[in-house]
């Protein structure tokens, strides 16, 4: 029946199609090339990013001379060189910008995602649902990859299945009781680095109180007026690695069942530095990016430094920030492409790891953990891009009986390296594509509206510009174009606890939250609860009612990621039930466990990914669902 309307051939369907590509990174470069070769002639591409050196090993449309330029524009120009007669429109912009609204999405026949983060994927999913445009979604990590198809009413949406959420750590693990290297990295990056070089007005959980009589000022991290840089650096060193550990050791209760940490002082690790009081550095090169490794003559990023070397790198990096980059201090945010910042964080994490008896790591490994760096190779991206185009052509031909989710595996599972699986029906309890209400356990007497909006509505539900209604009372609205008095009123509401809002929120109240840009609306039923477990429920509230994201143990040491990926694939060999049927039930969650790598090691912050990060979801065995007929 549908065949009457379906285009006769794939050539015609391809020629007539207008497609939107979101992302021009690892998958995007391959995808744009394969689309152009396959005869697509009307392509829009959106990407926010600019080109970096570490992209060049796989994003083959970019050259060294392009570093710093827009990925979308450069990719477009490169393709037009060999296919001058097709139309490519490039947007160097965030797909979450207001210009890319539902009407914008409606002009396309299919949307193809080559994205690197969960947030943007969810946003695009909602716009595709609202605009009723089919979505082909993809991701890769190392040798693993996947392509899935999402067509409203026919298959599940991207959010029908729970997604692993970035792991967050309880604050006290980071500040007081680290047990893994990743904890030390988070401490070095988000507490120490942020405290010393970042925005001074930001909240910071780093232990700042000082009672070591030598200093009478309120913040021990401030530099004394007459203090020279070496003294300052050594004082900070002794404070965070020595004194703070001593203070922590006083609390016997903490160490009852834990290994006691050792305080580390500069006089023990670098006795000569204390005596000399200032190293002479004459090899510094003003033309190059300042680097502590370079000025200390350390060349191999794969090497694990000794405690003394880490201490030297830390002091050197500290001084270089003040000597060469003083203007940036106060505004710095850790960036995995900032060599000096990576050096500082590696050294600080290692010294802390030494204190706590945790194995030290090389700069290369530490950078991977600190930057949430995703393993990426050109081959997997090329394969996945090919699979995206194959699915896109089926979508354009409305050939829904042949839609497949395809998994690219590292180890063949029952002879298959590329495994097609029939897509699932929509999840009827999905809050995004069905109208099922959610349930929020919260202490309405102490929790502010702001916390619910930040921790639940924005962070968990992924809304961009939310609006909150209680019955018919509007208590909050985000976005531009608000009247001044409205904005002031909403700002007041944000600081009020739920029970004291103009329309009080108590046990049994129903909230309606909406995002106009995403055209998404859902209801949250409130359940009042007084007590929350600080460790297990750090938000002080619990959202349920749809399949909550599974929080998995991350592979945090950064030392055996590749081994882990292979073992997980091996482990599932036996769980595959029928190798000959494409729509088999199977435990892909274990198989694709390496997806954790892309979420590795962030604290409660939003994960800042590299370009090809995946959210390898494909977890059909987790929820029982009927397959698409």
């Amino acid at each position, binding site marked *: 029946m549908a065949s009457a309307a379906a285009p006769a051939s794939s050539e015609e369907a391809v020629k007539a199609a207008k497609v939107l590509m979101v992302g021009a990174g690892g998958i995007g470069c391959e995808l744009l*090339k*394969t689309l152009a*070769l*396959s005869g697509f002639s009307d392509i829009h591409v959106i990407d926010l990013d600019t080109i970096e*050196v*570490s992209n*060049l*090993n*796989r994003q*083959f449309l970019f*050259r*060294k001379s392009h570093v710093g330029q827009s990925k979308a524009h450069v990719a477009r120009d490169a393709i037009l*060189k*060999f296919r*001058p007669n097709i139309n490519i429109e490039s947007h160097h912009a965030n797909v979450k910008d207001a210009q890319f609204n539902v009407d914008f999405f409606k002009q396309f026949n299919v949307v193809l995602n080559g994205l690197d983060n969960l947030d943007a994927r969810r946003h695009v999913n909602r716009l595709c649902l609202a605009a009723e445009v089919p979505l082909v979604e993809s991701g890769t990590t*190392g*040798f693993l990859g996947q392509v899935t198809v999402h067509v409203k009413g026919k298959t599940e949406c991207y959010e029908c299945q729970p997604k692993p959420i970035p792991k967050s750590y309880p604050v006290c693990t980071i500040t007081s009781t680290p047990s893994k290297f990743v904890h030390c990295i988070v401490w070095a990056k988000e507490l120490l680095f942020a405290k010393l070089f970042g925005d001074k007005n930001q909240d910071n959980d780093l232990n700042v109180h000082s009672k070591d009589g030598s200093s009478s000022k309120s913040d021990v991290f401030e530099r004394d007026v007459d203090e020279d840089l070496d003294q300052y650096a050594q004082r900070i060193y002794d404070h965070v690695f020595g004194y703070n550990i001593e203070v922590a050791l006083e609390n016997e209760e903490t160490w009852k069942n834990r290994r006691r940490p050792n305080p580390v002082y500069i006089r023990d690790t670098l006795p000569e530095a204390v005596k000399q009081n200032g190293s002479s550095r004459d090899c510094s090169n003003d033309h190059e990016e300042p680097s502590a490794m370079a000025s200390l003559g350390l*060349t*191999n*990023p*794969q090497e694990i430094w000794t405690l003394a070397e880490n201490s030297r790198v830390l002091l050197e990096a500290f001084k270089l920030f003040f000597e060469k980059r003083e203007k940036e201090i106060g505004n710095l945010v850790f960036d995995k492409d900032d060599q000096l910042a990576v050096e500082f964080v590696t050294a600080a994490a290692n010294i802390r790891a030494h204190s706590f008896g945790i194995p030290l790591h090389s700069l*290369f490994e530490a950078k*991977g953990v600190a930057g949430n*760096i*995703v*393993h*990426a*190779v*050109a*081959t*997997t*991206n*090329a*394969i996945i*891009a*090919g*699979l995206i*185009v*194959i699915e896109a052509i089926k979508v354009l031909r409305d050939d829904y009986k042949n839609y*497949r989710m*395809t998994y*690219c595996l590292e*180890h*063949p599972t029952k*002879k*298959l*390296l*590329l*495994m*097609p699986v029939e897509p699932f029906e929509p999840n009827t309890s999905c809050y995004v594509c069905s109208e099922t209400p959610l349930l929020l356990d919260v202490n309405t007497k102490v929790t502010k509206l702001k916390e619910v909006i930040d921790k639940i509505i924005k962070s968990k539900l992924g809304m961009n510009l939310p609006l909150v209604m209680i019955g018919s009372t509007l208590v909050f609205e985000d976005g531009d174009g608000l009247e001044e008095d409205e904005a002031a009123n909403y700002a007041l509401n944000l600081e009020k606890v739920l029970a004291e809002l103009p329309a009080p929120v108590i046990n049994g109240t129903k909230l309606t939250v909406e995002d106009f840009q995403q055209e998404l609306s859902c209801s949250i039923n409130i359940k009042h609860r007084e007590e929350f477990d600080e460790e297990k429920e750090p938000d002080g509230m619990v959202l349920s009612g749809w399949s909550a994201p599974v929080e998995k143990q991350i592979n945090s040491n950064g030392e055996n*990621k*590749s*081994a882990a990926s*292979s*073992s*997980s694939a*091996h482990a599932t060999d036996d769980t595959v039930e029928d190798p*000959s049927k*494409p729509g088999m039930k199977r435990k892909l969650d274990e198989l694709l466990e390496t997806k954790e790598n892309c979420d590795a090691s962030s604290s409660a912050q939003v994960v800042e990914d*590299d370009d090809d990060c995946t959210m390898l979801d494909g977890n059909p065995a987790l929820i029982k669902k009927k397959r698409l007929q």
Partner: protein
Amino acid sequence: MMDLSKYVTYLISFFRRLRIRAFRAMGGDGGTEEELTAQETALYDRQIRVWGVDAQKRLSKAHVLVCGVNGTTIEFCKNIVLAGVGSLSLMDDHIVTEDDLSANFLIPHDVCMQGVSSRAEACCESLKDFNPMVRVAVAIGDPSLIDEGFVDRFDIIVVSCASLKTKLFLNDNCRKRSKHIAFYSVECKDSCGEIFVDLQNHSYLQKKPGGEPEQQELTYASLQEAISVPWKNLPKKTTKLYYATRVLESYELSEGRDPGETGLSDLPAVLAWRKDMCDRMSLSESQIPTALLERLLAAGKKEHPPVCAILGGILGQEVIKSISCKGDPIKNFFYYDAADGKGIMEDIPPTPVEQFA
């Protein structure tokens, strides 16, 4: 006289070994003593996180020859140049025509219009651009005529759009050398594709769940052995593409045609050929559906770009695995069919060689 000829053979093999030793002394054995440069570490950062520093060093010392430049092999070339192999040589003297543009993204329009460049020349410059650290060169010549010594310059040989005869000849050449040379052949027929792998004797590190990697040994069949296995000995679930490809290949050979120089008009003759082969090999003709043969015949030389990307990606990964001696390689066929979406590995002949020993 006999003695003299034996002596000459001995001399030749002596010098050949000498040359290989000299080559190894120059670092050709993938020795991993030197460090990667800062430039290499920065460029290859993301992939080193996948396969490790040692594999990256081995890659940078590997020499690859590609015979036959088409949409599929150019995808492969792109992948291994980006990955950072030591050198890549392209052999394809055919003058570029407009047909070559359809699946090949490296041939600029103006080059095609001039009508003077060979396929290898047309792609060489663009490939150099992808990674200045890789030496990309044109190897002028005909794959069916290259002499034995020539293959010694390479660690990996990939063949495409060549006749079965040429493939057998090259595979045989690789096997005759004392140096280990990995052989791959790849063909894309529209929405279907086949990769053949011959690593001879391959030892590699296999990752074990939760444990230390273990040394594994694999013994491969030659192309000749792999395509002449009696069909009745093959497992029931062997992919139909294996049989269909053998039928077409043998039909083309008997007719003296180049691969893909067939069309739907050949269907009746091909069906007769199928019956003949199935009778000889005791296989039911239903294992080689007419519809599948029709699809392959209609494809001719046409390559479907998404399938080129998939085959070139899989092949790239395989070559990286073989050079780095890390990860389970394909043994010894890979098939992809966009119609069912499966990417299947087949081990043919399936019987372990040890049983005969």
